[in-house]
């Protein structure tokens, strides 16, 4: 049984259809990369899975349980599904440590000492334990994004959604962030990531999905998708990516 399933998901903003009956399934420990032209619905899909956007039709299931539509315990869903945003969205009025411990203390009711110990362990893993008392403003973009990942991880999610997490970073800061994602994938975390880092997608993905016009236009293992895609649109997209020097 897939861990995460999307069945005929439809999402429109006003009269603008973004997702038009999208089907996709993600198995446990899979790393699924969403690629596609901007506006194809990659970010919207991730936000819908996390319940930040409601969907108009179709169904999203997590471990077989329906998590879209009315009657869903959305806070519980979000405890299981972490999301990291392109723009980090750290809380600027809190130190790094407070950013990481806020949800465990507030939502999971962990004792502060325990939450802080866990947060420090996580920060140590990404080499930022020295920054624990600093405020986000003092950190580089790459460091902020690593903290944002740790903040999501502190909730022990079953799935992590990564929404173009390196797009706002200076090129030399990207690799630090991708290293963490690579580690997560290696440890068996189920990951769904919208990305423009095609090289990285090719390296870590177990499945690559090309989104086009609100649907999964083509999906397959990375070597097939990047080496010999079947669909005309996929080829066209990858050709433009190669021309831009991004693959």
């Amino acid at each position: 049984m897939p861990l995460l399933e999307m069945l005929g998901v439809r999402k429109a903003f006003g009269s603008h259809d973004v997702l038009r009956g999208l089907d996709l399934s993600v198995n446990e420990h899979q790393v699924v990369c969403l690629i596609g032209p901007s506006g194809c619905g990659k970010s919207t899909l991730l936000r819908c899975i996390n319940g930040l956007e409601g969907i108009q039709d179709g169904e999203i299931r997590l471990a077989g349980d329906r998590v879209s539509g009315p009657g869903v315990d959305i806070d519980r869903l979000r405890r299981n599904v972490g999301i990291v945003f392109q723009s980090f969205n750290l809380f600027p009025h809190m130190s790094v440590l407070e950013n990481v411990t806020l949800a465990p203390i507030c939502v999971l009711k962990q004792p502060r000492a325990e939450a802080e110990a866990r947060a420090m362990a996580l920060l140590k893993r990404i080499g930022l334990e020295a920054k624990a008392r600093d405020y986000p403003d003092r950190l580089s973009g790459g460091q902020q994004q690593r903290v944002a990942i740790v903040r999501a991880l502190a909730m022990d999610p079953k799935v992590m959604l990564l929404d173009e997490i390196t797009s706002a970073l200076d090129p030399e800061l990207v690799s630090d962030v991708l290293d963490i994602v690579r580690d997560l994938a290696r440890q068996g975390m189920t990951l769904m990531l919208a990305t423009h880092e095609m090289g990285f997608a090719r390296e870590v993905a177990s499945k690559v999905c090309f989104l086009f016009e609100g649907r999964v236009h083509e999906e397959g293992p990375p070597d097939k998708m990047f080496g010999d895609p079947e669909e005309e649109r996929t080829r066209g997209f990858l050709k433009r990516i190669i021309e831009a020097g991004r693959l």
Partner: protein
Amino acid sequence: MTLASEQTQLDWGAPSQPKASGGLAWGALAAVVAILGVATLVLFNLRGLLAREVLSSSAADAAMVAVLAACTLLVWPASRAIAASFRVQPNLAAGDLVAARIAAASSREWSFITLGYGAAALLVLGGIAFFTANDGQVSKTFFDAKLIRDFTPLVAKAFMVNVLIFMCAEVLVLIWGLLVAIARLIPGEAGRPVRFLATVYCDIFRGFPVIITVYLVGFGIPLAGLPFLGDLPLPCYAIFALTLVYGAYVAEVYRSGIDSVHWSQMAAARSLGLSHLQALRHVIVPQAIRRIIPPLLNDFIGLQKDTALVQVIGVLDSFNQSRIIASNHFNLSAVTIVGLLFVLITIPQARLVDRLVEHDQRRMRAGG
């Protein structure tokens, strides 16, 4: 690459000449002379007045000499302006265009400095002239030294009533305003009636003149003969009325502060599993409050000043007290004291807020 060869020589025109500076410099000097004339006249008048009131003292004379000396100091920038303007032509003649332009610019700069300080001096002299007009009646009406000395303690004691009222009202306004703001921001269909009521409340009480609210509450509630509410001490009604009005203002300030926090912060907080209220409490409101402290102080200063309105329902506050003194002595000096007391409490608050904002910004940028 044919472009470069096709490019023609750009026409830069003649190099720019020094701007005119002589006229301005001489004008500045003339202005200084005129100001000195005015100063002499005004101070002479003042000295005569003091002599008639038997208030002449060597200290007053020294002060007047100091004012005159300060005006005379204006000659210095004016002369620098003229000196610099004299350097323009020789430099031009020597073919040093850059030095000529620098001299002209320097001359103009000094001329403007002379004129700027001169304008300020004129304003001060105008003020002195106003208060010495009509044989000093103006200054005596507002600033009778003896009355001020005698009645400051009494007025200051009555001012404590104002302080009590605005302190209580401010605490209540902070809480009530936040509640109203949150009510206006309740999401969803279920929140619609509460949102509506909160909006109506804000619209009504932001529009309602404070003095009328104070009047209606202060006279109306006792008149309606309600049990308990009907026989509270007068300042309680004043506090209640001010809370009603300023709660509406401050609710709007809170709301704009909350709105100004980017929605992505809410998304980030919710995505971590925080409920709407938890996100507001831990993430949105703390950031909003940091941004609204300066506008909040503005409203608080307004509230403090509006405590002077509670005299319409007969609270014996500083304004009411000072009006009694004023009508007994046919002189407004006691009322001036009240105004000055309000200024006196406002200034430290403004500085405190500056410090708070600065401190907070430093903290957010600082390491741990």
